[in-house]
Every structure is written in structure tokens, then in C-alpha cells.
């Protein structure tokens, strides 16, 4: 057998994707949460200029993809990107690079530090082989949910549970006006009345309160499992509420354990379709073992989106 011209270890986790045209590949870079230091961006630009054809592609999952790279240059590209600690992403039946919004660091809407969560999950779980199909994770900092968390295999949405310190309330009524869910109304005494059953944990009352009379009593993630897009889209459903940020990686690992076990022999099937087959109670029971304080009592199966095809 001929001596390989390139280091095949680089290819193990994927991220090198065959293009149309002889010898040409796309190299997908690992950019958790879409955050990129300017120094790293400059390095990527230099590598793209040297080995590509004058453009890159911004992937729909926040990555930069180097286009038109000749496979003979793989080792050089990996080495030069490595000078700024830029790594190559994955493809195939693995845990993918997590996506995230800007989070709470500079975005006033963010309730949790999604960037930190994305980095942590990337570090602990990136590239984990599922044995079945791809596995995507996404983080939204609030229920505006710009990252569309419920279309991931496991999707996280920032959440807070509000509590009122009535002494600090100046009865301005802004919280009741801001609450689009109708969970807050002003009582006869001019203080807000909270209908907990209508709250979706968006924290708008806490954000808008001019005197900080509304505070966050609990903070964490609403977790949905079983989402995906593609030919047969599913929207994930709620398995946990107020999951603390430091339990996120363990929670995903627990979902992966269940998926690996239940999808045995099923072939190339996403976790949402396995939930449809096994029933959601099985996954709930599995998650309750280690996350009893956060797992919901009951849930519903992944929601099937009608794509209207075939007509």
C-alpha cells in the first residue's frame, strides 16, 4: 500500500467534506457558539487566501467553511490554523459543534451565559460518536429563541422564575404592560398579581422593572429534546425546566446514553424519531434518575411538522 500523502488522523472526526470537482474539499471549522476572536479570523483569512479560491462560506450553524481546498494541502491547512488554535469541526454521526446566541454578557435580553455553555459542551462532548446519526445542541439565552433551540436534538432556552419584592415596587405598571403572556395584571392595591400558570419564564418583568422589585428566584434552562429539521422535521418537547447551567453537559450525556441504547440496530435515525418509537416516558424515566429536581412530570412526543410533501 502506498504511503499516505496526508495525515489520516486529521480526518478521523470529520469536517473535511468532499466537493464537486477533482481533489477539492470543504473544510468546516470548529466555532462553538459562533464566537470568533479577531486574531483567529485574521488567521483564517490568511489560510483561505493561501489555499482557497477567494471566498469562504458562513455555514448555517455559525461555522466558517473553507471552500475549494485541495486535499493535498490538508496537513498544511490544519497546521497553519493551529497557530491560532483554530480547529476543524466534525460531520457524520457525531455530536456537532454547539450553536448559541450572544448570551447575557453584552446582550440585554440574555438570561443565561449561552456562550459559556456552548464552549463547555464543545470541550466535553464534541465529536462523541453516537453510533446512529448526527446529534445537534443549541443554546438560546431567552424565550425569543433566535437560535431555534427546539430544532436541535437537545435544545436549551434561557429561563428565569420571577419573584416580587413588593416594598420596592412603585406601581408603575410596566411589568403588567410588558408581559405578553398575560401572566401579570395590576391588582387593586396597585401591585402586580402573578398568574404562575401563564408564565413562560421570559423574564421581561425583571428586565423592565425600573426599581428591580422583580428579581430572578430561579435561573437556568428550559430543555427540549427530539428536535431536528431536514426532510422530516420534528420540534423537540420539554424534558426539564430551570436546569442549572453547570448541569448542562451531564444532561446531554444522559440523553446520549439513552439514545445509544435505544437506537441499537435502528440504523441512521435521530433521537427524535427514537422517542416517537419508544415513547417519551422512557426518556423521562431515564433522565429522572440523575435530574429529578428539574425533569418535568410528563411531556408530549416530538411535534411532527407537516411538510406537505409528497403532494
Amino acid at each position, binding site marked *: 500500500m502506498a504511503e499516505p500523502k496526508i495525515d489520516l488522523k486529521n480526518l478521523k472526526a470529520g469536517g473535511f467534506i468532499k466537493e464537486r470537482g477533482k481533489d477539492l474539499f470543504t473544510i468546516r471549522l470548529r466555532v462553538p457558539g459562533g464566537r470568533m476572536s479577531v486574531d483567529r479570523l485574521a488567521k483564517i483569512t490568511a489560510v483561505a487566501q493561501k489555499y482557497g479560491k477567494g471566498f469562504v462560506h458562513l455555514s448555517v450553524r455559525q461555522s466558517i467553511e473553507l471552500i475549494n481546498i485541495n486535499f493535498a494541502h490538508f496537513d498544511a491547512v490544519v497546521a497553519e490554523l493551529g497557530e491560532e488554535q483554530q480547529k476543524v469541526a466534525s460531520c457524520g454521526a457525531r455530536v456537532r459543534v454547539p450553536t448559541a446566541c450572544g448570551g447575557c454578557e453584552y446582550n*440585554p435580553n440574555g438570561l443565561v451565559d449561552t456562550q459559556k455553555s456552548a464552549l463547555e459542551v464543545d470541550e466535553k462532548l464534541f465529536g462523541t460518536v453516537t453510533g446512529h446519526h448526527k446529534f445537534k445542541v443549541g443554546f438560546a439565552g431567552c424565550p425569543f429563541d433566535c437560535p431555534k433551540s427546539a430544532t436541535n436534538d437537545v435544545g436549551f432556552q434561557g429561563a428565569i422564575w420571577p419573584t416580587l419584592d413588593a416594598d420596592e415596587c*412603585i406601581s*408603575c*405598571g*410596566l411589568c403588567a404592560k*410588558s408581559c405578553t403572556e398575560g401572566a401579570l395584571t395590576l391588582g387593586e392595591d396597585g401591585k402586580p398579581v402573578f398568574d404562575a400558570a401563564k408564565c413562560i419564564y421570559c423574564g421581561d418583568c425583571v428586565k*423592565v422593572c*425600573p426599581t428591580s422589585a422583580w428579581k430572578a428566584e430561579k435561573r437556568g434552562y428550559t430543555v427540549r429534546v427530539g428536535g431536528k429539521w431536514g426532510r422530516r422535521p420534528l420540534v423537540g418537547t420539554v424534558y426539564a425546566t430551570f436546569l442549572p447551567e453547570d448541569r448542562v453537559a451531564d444532561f446531554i450525556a444522559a440523553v446520549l446514553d439513552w439514545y445509544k441504547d435505544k437506537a441499537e440496530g435502528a440504523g441512521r435515525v435521530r433521537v427524535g424519531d427514537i422517542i416517537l418509537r419508544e415513547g417519551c416516558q422512557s426518556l423521562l424515566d431515564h433522565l429522572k434518575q440523575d435530574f429529578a429536581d428539574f425533569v418535568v412530570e410528563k411531556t408530549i412526543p416530538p411535534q411532527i411538522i407537516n411538510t406537505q410533501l409528497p403532494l
Partner: protein
Amino acid sequence: MATIDLRGVTCPTNFVKAKLELEEIETGTTVEFLLDDGEPVKNVPRSLKAEGHKLLGLKETDGYYVLTIEKGED
């Protein structure tokens, strides 16, 4: 007390105008801003709070809001 009318000014111009007005005022002074209902009254008080000013009151009057604040440290 100075009253600054920000009615008819959309976000984020109203907040930037409020900031510029506050630059001309001594710390500890009380100022009134008139704000439209809707996005302005949801956003401007919150943004001024985040800039370190003290919100003393907010009252609805004839379809608009009167926000009273005390200027914080520069």
C-alpha cells in the same frame, strides 16, 4: 425640575437623546422624561437604569408616560 420631551422619538434615538441631555446635568439632580407608550416606555427606563441612574417614578398620563429619574455618577 427640567422636563425633556421624548414623545415622537423612536428607539434607540430617544435613549441616546436622553443620554446626551443627562450629560449636561449635575449628578443627583432630578429630571423628567416624557415617553411614548409601547417600545419607548419599555426600553428607555431599563436602559437608563443600566447606565446607573436612579429611577424614582413612572406614571401614565393621557396616553404617554412621565419618567422621573435622579442622575447617577458620571
